[in-house]
């Protein structure tokens, strides 16, 4: 029943090989494609949600959405004093701040004295720091952990999401994303 007569041209026997060739072509493409394997955040090209956070430290003002609508691209850095990789990225943030990039911070589930100690140890590149005790802003902008850094253009629209700490080799990428956002 399943086997046809012998004389019939048996193209079907080549079918598995053809399917495998298709699979092969697909994964070859998958292996050599550009190394961008991150899933694009669903929040890219979406405006920031409305928020108004109280200051996380006495040295800097709190953070509100209005700050990001001033016409110039800014970085939004999600961090916490209890987060070890956040300390690792501070030289890179300092370098960016030194090149004139304006950086705002959101401190997640933190206490004022801890934030102050963290900034004293690692430097303070932030213009403003908002205190997000319930991770409300963090979740609303699609960040799942600390640290994460967002490039926000001058109209308050998220243009790029950097997951994990900014390593020295990531600095040019961040700068180029800021330039893109400025256009």
């Amino acid at each position, binding site marked *: 029943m399943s086997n046809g007569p012998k004389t019939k041209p048996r193209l079907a026997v080549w079918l598995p090989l053809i399917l495998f060739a298709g699979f092969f072509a697909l*994964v070859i493409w998958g292996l050599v494609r550009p190394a961008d394997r991150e899933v694009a955040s669903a929040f890219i090209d979406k405006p920031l949600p409305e928020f108004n956070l109280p200051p996380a430290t006495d040295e800097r003002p709190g953070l509100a959405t209005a700050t990001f609508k001033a016409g110039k691209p800014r970085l939004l850095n999600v961090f916490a004093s209890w987060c070890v990789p956040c300390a690792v990225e501070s030289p890179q943030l300092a370098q960016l701040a030194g090149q004139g990039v304006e950086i705002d911070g959101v401190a997640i589930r933190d206490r004022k004295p801890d934030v102050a100690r963290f900034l004293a140890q690692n430097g303070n590149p932030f213009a403003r720091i908002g205190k997000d005790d319930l991770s409300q802003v963090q979740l609303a902008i699609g960040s799942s952990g600390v640290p994460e850094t967002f490039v926000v253009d001058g109209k308050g629209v998220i243009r790029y999401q950097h997951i994990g700490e900014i390593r020295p080799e990531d600095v040019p990428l961040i700068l180029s994303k800021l330039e893109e956002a400025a256009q």
Partner: protein
Amino acid sequence: MIAELGLAVLWMAAALAVLQLVAGILALRPEGRQVAGLVRPVAVMQGVLVAGALVALITLFLTTDLSVKLVAENSHSMKPFIFKLAGTWGNHEGSMLLWVAIMAVAGGFVALVEKRLPENTLIATLAGQAFVSLGFYAFLLLASNPFQRLPEPAPEGAGLNPLLQDIGLAFHPPTLYVGYVGLSIAFSFAVGALVTRDVGPAFARAMRPWVLGAWIFLTLGITAGSYWAYYTLGWGGWWFWDPVENASLMPWLAATALLHSCSVLASRNALKAWTVMLGVIAFSMSMVGTFLVRSGILTSVHAFAVDPERGSFILALLAIYIGGALTLFALRASTVTEGARFSFVSREAALVFNNVMLCGILGIVLVGTLYPLLTEAMGVKVSVGPPYFNPVSAVFAIPMMLVMGVGPLLRWRQDSFEGKGAGRITLPVGVCALLSAAVLLGVELLAPQIKLLPALGLAIAAGLAPASFLPLRGRNLRRTPLATWGMVFGHFGIAVALFGMASESAFSTERLAAMRPGDVQQVGPYAVKLEGIGPVAGPNWTALEGTVSASYAGAAPSILRPQARTFSNPPGNRTESALKTRWNGQLYAVLGEEGDDGRWQMRFWWKPFVPMIWYGGALIALGGLLALLGRVAADVRRLVATGKIAYRRERQGR
């Protein structure tokens, strides 16, 4: 010293594999007959040597020899014994060595015991096995040497991923590997049979125990892996259609189809080309699965441990072996396709139906797994999850399970539902079908909120469970062959697992609560009370442990202790859920984080009959084991009988 010895032995084994291949090819030509005697002993020796290399690596891990790179990167002197052992294969290099070792040992075993096949087909099989092994030897020795030394011994090892430090995971990968690699024997048999154009019942009988064995291990491996994911990941789910899970499911589906078509070929000499192709497909799926997992091609979020070089290497192996075998199949298939005919209502037809449905599910899973890659090639990023897999695979699974109730009752070649068949088949199956319909009707009337798929699952399980015992009707149970018992248990296991899955999906209740010590919550029939939270310490972790007393419908409470563990080497966290199993379900408790107000995030599930999923898996594996024992016992009896006949002939001087 041990590392160097291991490496040397591995090279020797690779050299023997070359010899096995060359001698095998020569032996198949008329002028090379004299080297034919070489193939079997070489195959046995190769198995012994690789086993030696594996023992060397295990020794290095057990003694935590930190001058070896692999040990330093994956082990730690403070790790408990069992995880040092498991660390041997809990990494890329070690697992590839385990793979090669199982493959060579299995090949050696075939060389030692297989006497039924024509010698030429066996030699072609062993040459094929050597050819496949060689690729993996090359991969090990050239691209992932497990015995590499460090220039300076490391002061301390880096440890093992905390998620993997679990007793289930210590034995889950080797179990799956035995399954994957067991299928390589079926692959080699298929290639050997294609080379000598000798596809017949003898080939199917020789291949069947290997397929059965591999299938048992795959079943156990998948069942255990599912349970592991269920209790360690702390999400309360038991199957996520994750690429890694699909990678183990696809070979199982192919092996299940192969198992059934093997029995058609062995008993009826039909489905020749189809069985050979499934033999090729089953191991191909193992390799494809390994490739998809190892190359990192599908790990899209937070890609880690991606190694395109290794990926390319495995892909090259895939192209050579799968491409080669499928080409051979296409060239030779026309000469092996003729088989015995059968009518539309017959056991063969039911098994063909089962095969087509299984291959349908296999296709669904493969396409679903590759779909994100496919759409990305067209510029769209998507992820594919249960909303696709569940209904689409059910389209194939449900008809298959319906036929499963009838198929085993049908006679080979030709049968009928009328006349004599009415009492034997139609009536009992009709009763089971009525049972299914009654359950479906009952669910729809009493609990209309239950979705269609779980309702259908409950209904089919209710009919299939009694139907799976029908083949025993009217038989002398003592004389029923073990293989038949195996089939009955296997099919019953499917019904049991299906019931568990449907029940979990239909009746689970979840409760998420922020609790202070002393607070009480109601979860299904359970009243759970958070008694307290305290620190505990293990050999290489510390944890916060919640003490939860759970009382079932007012009965005396039992204590659950969910933990949030923190591992130090390497640093990492893992939730250790706590389970309370009753005959009618499981209470599942997870300890979350502490909120600012001193309340703890607690998560509870009451999952009625969820353990049936894994009991079902175990029953399926038990069915496979019974069938395997039955087949092997029959083979041994026949061997003994032919031995006796030969002995008598010799004595009588004939």
